[in-house]
Each structure stands twice: as structure tokens, then as C-alpha cells.
């Protein structure tokens, strides 16, 4: 499986949600140098635009803390937060947004690339982690089925628990399937499926 390297940012789409003209020009210039495409959004507008983007550069100070608007920014593309105010009330609001990386204002041309790379990398890690957690949760959910299959195999073949599990695991490997899937078959048909070897 190939996935985009976090270091290659050319062609990725950035949404700038900023107000300060001086800082907008710094970010715009830097994104252009990196070959990214840019769209801009006024932080005062009611809701974020619908267009799909790869990263959002969001000036945290421009959105009021007690604002429903903040919720709209969650669960979208990774956020690079621009931070000016370090008060805990502002930082708590920011943590709720789960920014992928951040930059401290005033901005300079240096730093944005690092922030983007960290954001793309951590966004990819989040996707990977979420997939891994889903797999683990699937396995937890199928533990009952595996346990039932082990019991059935112990009884049907007169094996110890360890040997029964080993048999199921080896059979699953031979059949090129998972322990969970084979266990479901064992439980469904009441015994070890008599499948021809595929290897």
C-alpha cells in the first residue's frame, strides 16, 4: 500500500482561515512556493466551506471561544493552528479542535513547512491508528465466536484448549483466512470445514 509522503506537499489543497492581512500574505506566499493550491475563507462567516481540502490553516484567535462555529471545524482536514493568545481558556478551545500541528504568531516564512509536514504526518497516523483500532475492536467482538470454536474443537477432537487453538490457527493459515473467520465457520457448521488446500 502506498500513501503520500508527508514531505511532498506540492498539489495539496490548503484552506486559509485567517484575518490579519500581514500574516495572510506570509502564508499565501509560502504556500505558493511549496506549490500548494490555496483557498481562503473569512473566519466571520457562518460556516466552513464545503470544498474538500487537505489541510486547514486556522488562526485560532479569530474565532470566538463561545462559538458554535468552532464545532463546525472539527472532523475535517487536519488543522494547523496559529496561536497568539496562550490563555488556558483559548488553549482548551484549541485542544477540542484537535489541531494536527501549530505555529506561534507572529508568523515568519520559516516554520510553515514543518507545521504542514507534521500535520500531514499526524493526519496519516490518525487514519492508520483508527484503522488499527477498528481491526482490534473487530477481534474483540469475535472473541466469543473464537472461544465457542475452541470449545467445539476440544470436544470434537478430544484436544486440550491450547492444542485446539493451535489446530484452528494452523488451519486458518492453511486456508489463508483469519482465526476469527474460520471460527465463525466452525461454529456455523458445527465442526472443522473440510476445505481443499488452496496453497
Amino acid at each position, binding site marked *: 500500500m502506498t500513501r503520500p509522503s508527508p514531505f511532498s506537499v506540492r498539489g495539496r489543497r490548503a484552506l486559509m482561515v485567517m484575518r*490579519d*492581512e*500581514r500574516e495572510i500574505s506570509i502564508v499565501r506566499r509560502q504556500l505558493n512556493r511549496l506549490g500548494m493550491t490555496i483557498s481562503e475563507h473569512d473566519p466571520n462567516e457562518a460556516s466552513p466551506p464545503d470544498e474538500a481540502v487537505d489541510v486547514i490553516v486556522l488562526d485560532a484567535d479569530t474565532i*470566538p*471561544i*463561545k462559538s458554535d462555529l468552532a464545532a463546525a471545524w472539527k472532523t475535517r482536514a487536519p488543522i494547523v493552528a496559529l496561536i*497568539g*493568545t*496562550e*490563555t*488556558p*481558556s*483559548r488553549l*482548551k478551545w484549541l485542544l477540542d479542535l484537535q489541531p494536527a500541528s501549530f505555529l506561534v*504568531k*507572529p508568523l515568519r516564512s520559516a516554520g510553515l513547512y514543518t507545521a504542514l509536514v507534521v500535520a500531514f504526518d499526524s493526519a496519516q497516523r490518525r487514519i492508520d491508528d483508527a484503522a488499527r483500532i477498528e481491526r482490534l475492536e473487530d477481534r474483540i467482538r469475535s472473541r466469543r465466536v473464537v472461544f465457542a470454536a475452541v470449545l467445539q474443537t476440544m470436544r470434537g477432537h478430544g484436544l486440550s484448549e491450547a492444542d485446539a487453538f493451535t489446530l484452528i490457527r494452523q488451519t486458518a493459515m492453511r486456508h489463508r483466512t483469519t482465526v476469527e473467520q474460520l471460527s465463525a465457520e466452525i461454529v456455523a457448521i458445527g465442526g472443522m470445514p473440510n476445505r481443499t488446500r488452496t496453497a
Partner: protein
Amino acid sequence: MKKPSIPLGLVFSQSGPYAMMAGEMRKSALMAIDEINQSDQFDFVFAPRLRDPAGVVAAYHSACDELIRGEHVDHIVGCYTSASRKQVIPIVERTERLLWHPARYEGFESSDNVIYVGAAPNQHVVPLVLHMLDHISGEVFCIGSNYVWTWETNRVVREIVTSAGGRVLAERLLELGETAVDHIVKEIIERKPPVVFNTLVGESSYSFMRALHQAATRANLTIPMLSCSLCEPELKLIGSSASVGCITSSAYFESIDGAENRAFVARWKTRHGADSNLSVDALSTYVCVMLLARAIRRAGSADVGAVRRAAANHRYDSPQGPIWVDPDNNHCFLTPRLARSVPGCQFDIFWEADAPERPDPYLSNLDLAAIGTRPEKSNDTMTRQSTHLRVVK
């Protein structure tokens, strides 16, 4: 012999939402400059270079840029809001200049190129909340303007109050400048909270205090109100009856009883009229200029590094009492005070700290666990002495 002249930048908005307060600060800076220029205790004069950003946040950056590059100032006194200060910090840091900042603010900042002369949150918000817990109630209704000052003050209120087993009954926010307050006044009259914590600013606050006073009088209710920003000129704007009775935290009140302050108030009234009033922000601006002049005298130069070193720990017996810069964080040691607003646009001071308190801009020394284990609150106000509060005798 003619004294050498040192240019001094003054950045105060003469129009816009806080023009009234900034105007008072500008008057006070000019008064301090005149006093220094006429004094034989200083062998230099200040040449004020005035700039008016008109309350436009971005204009603060260009005003200071112009002062530094065009007028060659090393020192700037000014700014009122945190938003304006944060515009100025990048340029004073980049060019190694000093901003002398008079206004109290919400903390969580410490630039090497700013001298913070106004109160840090441990010097004004914390004493007020502790007083509320000890003498009024742990159940509080918060109302404020929708910006960083209110957000952060409310957070501190909530942390302290919940640590002590109390709770924030409501947190209502109004946009800056909003004067439609009736829905919140109605809610307060219906819910009858034991105390209201007001962090509204400017016209919003004046409208709210008038409307709540009127509604509470009609309903025959007395609801105590707390503020950590109310000042004497505002009492006049609010009006005689609605402005009375607000418990206010500040490092300065015009009514401070001390020789330095009495002489200062007399000079102020001679200059600005007998019916003029002082405010903490005006006084603090005067103190900024004085701290700077004394540091230049001590350093023998206006050089930023030398002045910063000379200002550190150099005590000034100011109208607000002894004050000096803590070199650890560039904020000032100063004396927190609590007072009640009374008729005649004045405050009756009922508590002050035993000694100037060390600034704690990050509230690192706020011990919430200790607050939680304090004795139960009592209603015998003013008689009981807590570990935190001392009643002025």
C-alpha cells in the same frame, strides 16, 4: 545648560470603543512627562511623540513601526487592549525596544520587551474571587463581553469556585459594545443569583448596571455585583444610583489614603479640573513614565538593555504605594485592593494586601487544592479574617 531630550512614544487611541479610557491615559502620560521635564531631579527631558491608532488593532503595529523607524524612539508607553499589545510585541521584539504597558490584563504572556505595569491576574482577579467565596457566595452568575478578558477571567472564576465546592450558575456573553441587555437582566431578576460577576466593558457594562439597578429596585432585590475593571470616571458615566455598591478589585483607587497619592490627586485636579477623576489606568500610565524616567536616571542612558536592568527591583514609592519590576517576568510587584463604589464617584477601600504582591502572570502559584480545604464561608462579613484577605483597619 539645556538638558538632552529623549523621544518617548505614546500610543493611545483618541477615538474608537475605548477612547475614553485611552484619553485619560494619554493625559496622565503627558502630565508625568511635564513633571519630569520641570524637575531638577532628572538631567534629561522627554519629548513626547504621540500616535493615535483610533482603536484599529492593525494601526498599532504601523504606529509603533513609525515611532521606532521614523522617530527613533527606544521606549513606547501605550496600548490598552491585549489585541493591540499583541500587535506591538513583534516589532518591539524584533527591534529590541521596550513597550511600557499600563493596563491590567488576563496574563499568560511575558515578553522581554514589555514592562507590564498593570495588574497580573493573581493581583486583581484572584483576590476578588476569594473575597466572594469568603463573604458573599460560592454560587455566581457571570456576565461579560465576548472576548479574551472575559473568557479567561471566567475560567479563573470557575476553577476557584468549583475547587471550593461552589458553582458558576450561568455564563452570559455579549458582543463588545452591545447594549441590549434586557434579556439578561430579566434572567437575573428571575433566578436571583447570590452574586453577579461583571466583566462587561465600556457601554455594555454601563447599560447593564443601569438596567439591573432599575429592575432590582423595582423587584425589591439586592444582588451584589463584582467587577475587576470598574473605575472612577466610569461611575460618573453610569450615573449616581446605579453605580453605587459594586465591589471592585484594583491596584489603585483615587481614595487611597497616603501622602504620595493625596499630592498626586491634588496635582491631577489642578491640571484637569476639580470635577475630574482618576482611574487605575491613568495612574498606571503615570507610573509607567515615572518607572521609565527613574530607570533611565539610574542607568545613565536610555539604552533598552541598561534601562531594563536598572528598572529591575528598583522600588518607586508611587501614588499606588511601593511598586517595582520583577525581573523574572517583567511584571510589577503591586498591592491588590478591594473597594465598594460609593456616591460621589469614589470607592471605599475595605481591604488591601499587607505588602506588594509578587506578579504571577501564569497563575503558577495559584493553589486550588488549598482553596478547596479552606473553612466554610461565613456571612459575618468583615469580621472574620481569612488566610488570604485582611480587612483594612
